[in-house]
């Protein structure tokens, strides 16, 4: 049974079929007893049909018809398991360069990233790509799983070499917390259960790491930001003059009585109440969904942001953004897009491409200014009205945005404000 105070941890796994990513997820689900009998029976039957010896754990993550047929992951799939300590959400993403957009998508909400390295091959281009995306999206914790240790005789030396290889290139990235785990997803070593084959390894198993990692300080608790989603006006007998601002606290803590400023108007007031169906609160923090009322009658609507008066975000029409292009249609030069940032929406233009990043080598290409699918670039964006933002590094909610093509309504890019 789950404890009432257990937390939710979201992590992403990036890798290809060959890395044993599906096997690892299957192993986590299987050994944590999250697989049901009918699922197991189905997988056993398929394993037999395909001529595998024993249960092919990778089959637990099979998805859409095309994926089953081609044996690949096409889209992000979300999977769930629970241990007595935590509830876990896995964003299972494909690792191929062609699917950068899916890796970015999976990474955007993750607390932790698992990067798989095949012990036989060590750090390869794909490893660097995954690490780069994890750092770009500011995933707070990275766990490098050096997999298939069984195929290198569980060698400590092989493990140590890969650790130094990884540390050497990752020093160029902005990652706060990297841990290394020698595992065999196929045999289960150090995934859920400790390995008897690697007595030299004294660290934690993967699951133990996921269960005990400190995550409550990953969210920004300092900068109080409240993007208004909608205005609540009950117009009932009991709440005749009620005017509540509904939203989810993006970061920080709000207290009843706080002096706040409403942006972009700049009007100042005090928090009169923080309301929920379960009663009034004295304080509320990210990521709580609440309704806030103010002492003064101010004109506030969706897209506005309530912040503490003594700690305000930046406001500007000109943004430097790390952009990931998600759509098959390339960006049109100086084309206008709809920008969506928290609950705010306005028009924007990509004014200039500063450089494109080679996500395998981290090199900056200053010449190639074309924006195509899966490209990651630093650009200058100009908006029609000032945007209230924090840098993505400080705040994953008020520092992120998407671009929507007005012609197709498609989401074409994701951006992180520098």
């Amino acid at each position, binding site marked *: 049974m789950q404890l*009432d105070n257990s937390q939710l941890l979201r992590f992403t796994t990036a890798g290809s079929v060959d890395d044993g990513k599906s096997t690892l997820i299957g192993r986590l689900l299987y050994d944590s007893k999250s697989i049901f009998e009918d699922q197991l029976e189905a997988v056993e039957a398929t394993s037999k049909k395909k001529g595998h010896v024993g249960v092919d754990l990778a089959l637990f993550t099979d998805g859409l018809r095309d994926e089953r047929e081609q044996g690949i992951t096409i*889209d992000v799939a979300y999977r769930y398991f629970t241990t007595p300590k935590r*509830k876990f959400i896995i964003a299972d993403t494909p690792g191929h360069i062609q699917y950068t957009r899916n890796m970015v998508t999976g990474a955007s909400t993750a607390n932790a990233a698992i990067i798989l390295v095949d012990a036989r091959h060590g750090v390869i281009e794909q490893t660097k790509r995954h690490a780069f995306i994890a750092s770009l999206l500011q995933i707070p914790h990275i766990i490098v799983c050096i997999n298939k240790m069984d195929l290198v005789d569980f060698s400590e030396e092989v493990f140590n070499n890969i650790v130094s290889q990884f540390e050497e290139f990752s020093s160029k990235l902005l990652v706060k917390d990297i841990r290394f785990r020698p595992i065999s997803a196929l045999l289960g070593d150090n995934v859920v259960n400790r390995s008897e084959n690697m007595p030299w390894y004294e660290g934690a198993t993967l699951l133990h790491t996921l269960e005990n990692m400190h995550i409550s300080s990953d969210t920004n608790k300092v900068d109080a930001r409240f993007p208004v*989603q*909608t205005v*609540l006006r009950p117009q009932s007998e009991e709440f005749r003059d009620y005017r509540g601002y509904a939203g989810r606290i993006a970061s920080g803590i709000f207290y009843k009585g706080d002096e706040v400023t409403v942006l972009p108007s700049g009007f100042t007031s005090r928090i009169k109440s923080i309301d929920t169906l379960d009663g009034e609160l004295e304080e509320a923090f990210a990521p709580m969904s609440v309704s806030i009322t103010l002492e003064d009658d101010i004109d506030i609507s969706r897209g506005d942001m309530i912040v503490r008066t003594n700690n305000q975000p930046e406001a500007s029409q000109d943004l430097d953004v790390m952009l990931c292009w998600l759509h098959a249609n390339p960006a049109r030069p100086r084309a206008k897009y709809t920008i*969506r940032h928290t609950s705010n929406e306005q028009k924007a233009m990509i004014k200039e491409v500063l450089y494109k990043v080679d996500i395998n080598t981290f090199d900056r290409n200053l010449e190639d200014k074309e924006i195509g699918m899966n490209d990651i670039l630093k650009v200058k964006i100009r908006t029609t009205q000032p945007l209230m933002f924090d840098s993505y590094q400080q705040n994953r909610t008020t520092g992120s945005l*998407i671009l929507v093509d007005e012609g197709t309504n498609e989401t074409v890019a994701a951006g992180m404000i520098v």
Partner: protein
Amino acid sequence: MLEKELELSVETMSKYYLNYLDELESEAIYVLREVWAQFQNPVILFSGGKDSIVVTHLARKAFYPAKIPFALMHVDTGHNFPETIEFRDRLIESLGARLIVGSVQESIDKGRVAEERGKNATRNALQITTLLDAIEENKIDCAIGGGRRDEEKARAKERFFSHRDDFGQWDPKNQRPELWNIFNGKHFEGEHFRAFPISNWTEMDVWNYIKRENIKIPSLYFAHEREVVWRNNSWIPNSEFLKLEEHEEVITKKIRFRTLGDITITGGIESEADTVEKIAEEVAAMRQTERGNRSDDKRSETAMEDRKRQGYF
């Protein structure tokens, strides 16, 4: 940063976090408010099952102290458990919400669809047409569902905001990427969206939440005596719609339902669980998936994906 705030950030680290149910609740409320803000005419798809009941409960929370701004839409196959309909009507009354009913019988009478034939005939697939017709007739631009990603492998790839083209179809390989919590509900006339606020909940989460929030659910979920027939590895309730095979025998058993669908396809399980607490315990110990008793999912490996592509819930 002010010094006071710096100290605060260190001192408060451990106190200010949400437990998993609070975080899931907050996420769902956020999604429901986004739906309200981004669409003109959204509805909640209400089946009378626990998931749509939880979504409705969350909608109350999202808009309090205002009323639920969404109408509830029920696709009525005509093959209902009477308990579901009673429950639905009572809930609608207590919420003061509007009810829209799409009737499969009407779709059949109008010749929009034809009844399936044979022993295992159901109206499950027919619902798709009725649902899409009701969406079009009522000019609904977003239908909020209680679908969860843990239910089924095709559902595992669903977005919170899921686009449907003007034929109501889902294209799983060409979905809009959904990053952070920024949802893009922009659409052209005639297209619509499905929104899934409890995407990240599991069956266990739903039960723990029902228990914690003391949410009322239909009596069918609790263990009760009922006339049933053993068919396709589960206890199918006896009803006027059930055609008995020669070897089949109606017996009375103490059962409960783990999911609620049509009376013709929803299999019960033997159970003694007659309180939410006992159900939660039972579910925690279950070794079969929830939809294992749904014959609609057993038709093929990709039964759910195929129906979803066409516009199913």
